[in-house]
């Protein structure tokens, strides 16, 4: 019954939303104030798409029936990832992990390579893994790299992945492992909830809408995400992913290198002496070989053969150069020998030309080494991925949120995922605003990286519903730009009397109010009585973070700039927190001042009454939203005894 109501609300919200937004575009744009009218209607369209995607998610949001009891004898590795968390905290998690009932092996994956962590692991009787020599001087890929490293030195069929601060309950495997009876299931994600959240959740740590209706809705479309912790994975699926990805990356590297080869060769030509016959001849030969490689690839020849043939041709060029050198050398030796015939110190050395050519043409000694850029290019056109520590990277490394990227690729390969809605681990949330903001920024940045690097809408292996489920999450992270418009529009009206909407009040409310009311009803019914107000407040109030996430991800993906990425701290950061929400504070001042101006204009008879009323109401709503930041900035950490929390 509730489910039918939900679907009716979804349809009603979308219909009423289209009715409103279409009317806004076609009949009520105030072209005289296009500079605010156009941004506003775009923001409204953004929100309509957002709510439509939410509706699609809710369409299939259902609680799964309990999975079968897992058969005995499955092998499971429990991984606890840590980088710099306190030893005590990791040890607590490791102890709980060790005591999980279903038989398994527990491992601490220590990216900090700390001796006392290793000692603690030994004391607890759990395994300890840190990075090996092969990672030195190569990209570490943070948590994804840490997990990839551990995957190569363990062998369980299934993996349970836990963040250092997620303490598992003893029945976590008994209750969630059963889903893998379906051989197509690659991932089982369970919720992340936090045990250290104060009354009222001042920092908005809990995500009851996400770890609930949203994940269940995505699950309904076979698109439940991997969220990095409290999740079980099938090793075989990850390995398949690693292999497919390896082939794809090699192919891409080779194609990119071949495409850029002409530029590299002509640059090398410019820096060499045009009269140097030998170098120019060699460059001609290389250019020809690259050309051949390119056209054979275009004709669908396997990449392995093309690169092998290319390397062979390059070796031949190198050989020819060396034999030419040695031929000259032999003639010089002969001439010297003749000179010496009279003198007393004859040179009796003979060159074994064939074997000498072979050794001198080897890659380290080859004369082609003189053309360093060309040499570097040729190294890229090979299949050993010498730039990475390990050729197989099952967990995606394209984003700082490797989890989402990984599950998207799993879906692309046709695997199934499951969201299991039962609390099976209890975590620790950040306890101060600064740490919380960094964490949100990181999630948003990672999500944007995935969107920019592997846009789900064009990933062929996934169904359209799956693509939209991923896109929906990414789309919602663009809300920062819409928020700016929503905050600006009332200020513009109250201060200058400029209305972006060209319509009379009745027409506007007739279209806007039904949409708004049904939309709020949809939220209320979807969340099944759990309060989502905190989440709604934060999604608007943190607009500077969302905007920064988008701009820094664009700079990172397209211009190779660092993200400024920081690992989330599990311990409180001291110091003043107000500076972190400076922008929102200034905005609140603007909103208040504009209200005063708006009311003054009304009193003086300049302002328009209905418009002023609507916009003042709008400002009040905005201020209530922003007010969430006041207790957040004053919050001084979680105390299990609430009476002692200072206000």
């Amino acid at each position, binding site marked *: 019954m509730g489910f039918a109501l939900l679907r009716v609300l979804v349809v009603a919200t979308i219909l009423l939303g289209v009715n409103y937004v279409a009317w806004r575009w076609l009949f009520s744009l105030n072209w005289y104030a296009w500079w605010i009218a156009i941004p506003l209607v775009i923001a409204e369209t953004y929100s309509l798409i957002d709510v439509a995607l939410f509706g699609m998610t809710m369409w299939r949001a259902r609680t799964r029936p309990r999975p079968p009891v897992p058969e005995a004898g499955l092998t499971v590795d429990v991984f606890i990832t840590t980088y710099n968390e306190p030893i005590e905290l990791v040890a607590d998690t490791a102890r709980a992990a060790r005591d999980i009932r279903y038989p398994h092996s527990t491992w601490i994956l220590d990216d900090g390579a700390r001796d006392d962590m290793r000692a603690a692991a030994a004391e607890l009787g759990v395994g300890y893994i840190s990075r090996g020599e092969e990672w030195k001087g190569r990209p570490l890929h943070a948590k994804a790299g840490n997990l990839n490293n551990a995957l190569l030195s363990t062998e369980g069929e299934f993996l349970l992945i836990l963040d250092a601060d997620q303490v598992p309950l003893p029945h976590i495997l008994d209750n969630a492992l059963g889903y893998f009876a379906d051989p197509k299931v690659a991932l089982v994600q369970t919720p992340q909830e936090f045990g250290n959240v104060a009354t009222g959740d001042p920092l908005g740590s809990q995500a009851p809408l996400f770890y609930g209706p949203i994940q269940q809705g995505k699950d309904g479309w076979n698109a439940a995400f991997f969220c990095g912790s409290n999740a079980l994975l099938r090793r075989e699926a990850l390995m398949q992913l690693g292999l497919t990805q390896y082939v794809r990356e090699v192919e891409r590297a080779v194609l990119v290198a071949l495409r850029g080869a002409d530029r590299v060769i002509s640059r090398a030509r410019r820096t060499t002496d045009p009269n140097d016959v030998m170098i120019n001849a060699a460059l001609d030969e290389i250019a020809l070989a690259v050309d051949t490689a390119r056209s054979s690839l275009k004709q669908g020849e396997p990449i392995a053969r093309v690169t092998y043939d290319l390397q062979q041709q390059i070796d031949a060029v190198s050989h020819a150069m060396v034999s030419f050198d*040695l031929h000259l*050398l032999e003639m*010089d*030796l002969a001439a*010297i020998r003749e000179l010496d015939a009279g003198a007393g110190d004859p*040179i009796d050395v003979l060159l074994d030309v064939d074997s000498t050519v072979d*050794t001198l043409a080897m890659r380290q000694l080859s004369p082609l*080494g*003189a053309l360093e850029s060309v040499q570097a290019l040729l190294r890229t056109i090979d299949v050993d991925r010498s730039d990475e520590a390990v050729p197989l990277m099952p967990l995606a490394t394209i984003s700082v949120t490797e989890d989402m990227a990984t599950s998207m690729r799993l879906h692309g390969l046709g695997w199934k995922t499951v969201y299991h809605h039962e609390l099976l681990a209890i975590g620790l949330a950040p306890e101060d605003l600064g740490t919380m903001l960094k964490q949100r920024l990181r999630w948003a940045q990672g999500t944007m990286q995935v969107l920019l690097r592997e846009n789900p809408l064009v990933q062929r292996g996934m169904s359209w519903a799956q693509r939209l489920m991923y896109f929906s999450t990414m789309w919602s992270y663009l809300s920062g730009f819409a928020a700016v418009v929503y905050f600006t529009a009332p200020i513009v009206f109250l201060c200058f009397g400029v209305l972006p909407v060209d319509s009379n009040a009745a027409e506007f409310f007739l279209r806007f109010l039904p949409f708004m009311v049904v939309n709020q009803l949809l939220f209320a019914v979807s969340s099944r009585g759990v309060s989502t107000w905190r989440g709604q407040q934060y999604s608007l109030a943190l607009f500077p973070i969302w905007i920064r996430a988008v701009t820094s991800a664009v700079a990172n993906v397209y211009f190779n700039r660092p993200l400024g990425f920081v690992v989330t701290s599990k311990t409180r950061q001291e110091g003043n927190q107000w500076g972190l929400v400076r922008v929102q504070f200034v905005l609140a001042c603007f909103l208040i001042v504009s209200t005063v101006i708006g009311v003054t204009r009304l009193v003086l008879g300049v302002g328009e009454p209905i418009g002023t009323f609507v916009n003042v109401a709008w400002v009040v709503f905005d201020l209530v939203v922003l007010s969430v930041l006041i207790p957040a900035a004053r919050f001084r950490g979680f105390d299990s005894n609430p009476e002692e929390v200072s206000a």
Partner: protein
Amino acid sequence: MDYTVKDLGGGVAVLSLDGRLNMVSAARLREAVTSTVAKGHVRIAVDLAGVDFMDSSGLGALISGLKTARQAGGDLRIAAPSEQVKLVLQLTNMERVLLAHERAETAFSG
């Protein structure tokens, strides 16, 4: 590759090389030897202390320098080769043609 020439007197000169002795720089070494010989320094000690890499072209230039010096009635000797240069000399058996001396300054005093 850069080089400097130091006159030790008595027709002896030290030719100090710095950089990679490869396909690109081989021609410069040939020219350097020819012009040094032309100036009357027919006994040339090539100081290889600053050469970290040599390929077949570089080796060819050394032997060609040896020929030039011998044709002028002099000699070319090498000093202080790096491990990589020694390896190339060994691989080609040329260590017997170009005996490596410890120091360029004393290559002709022994």
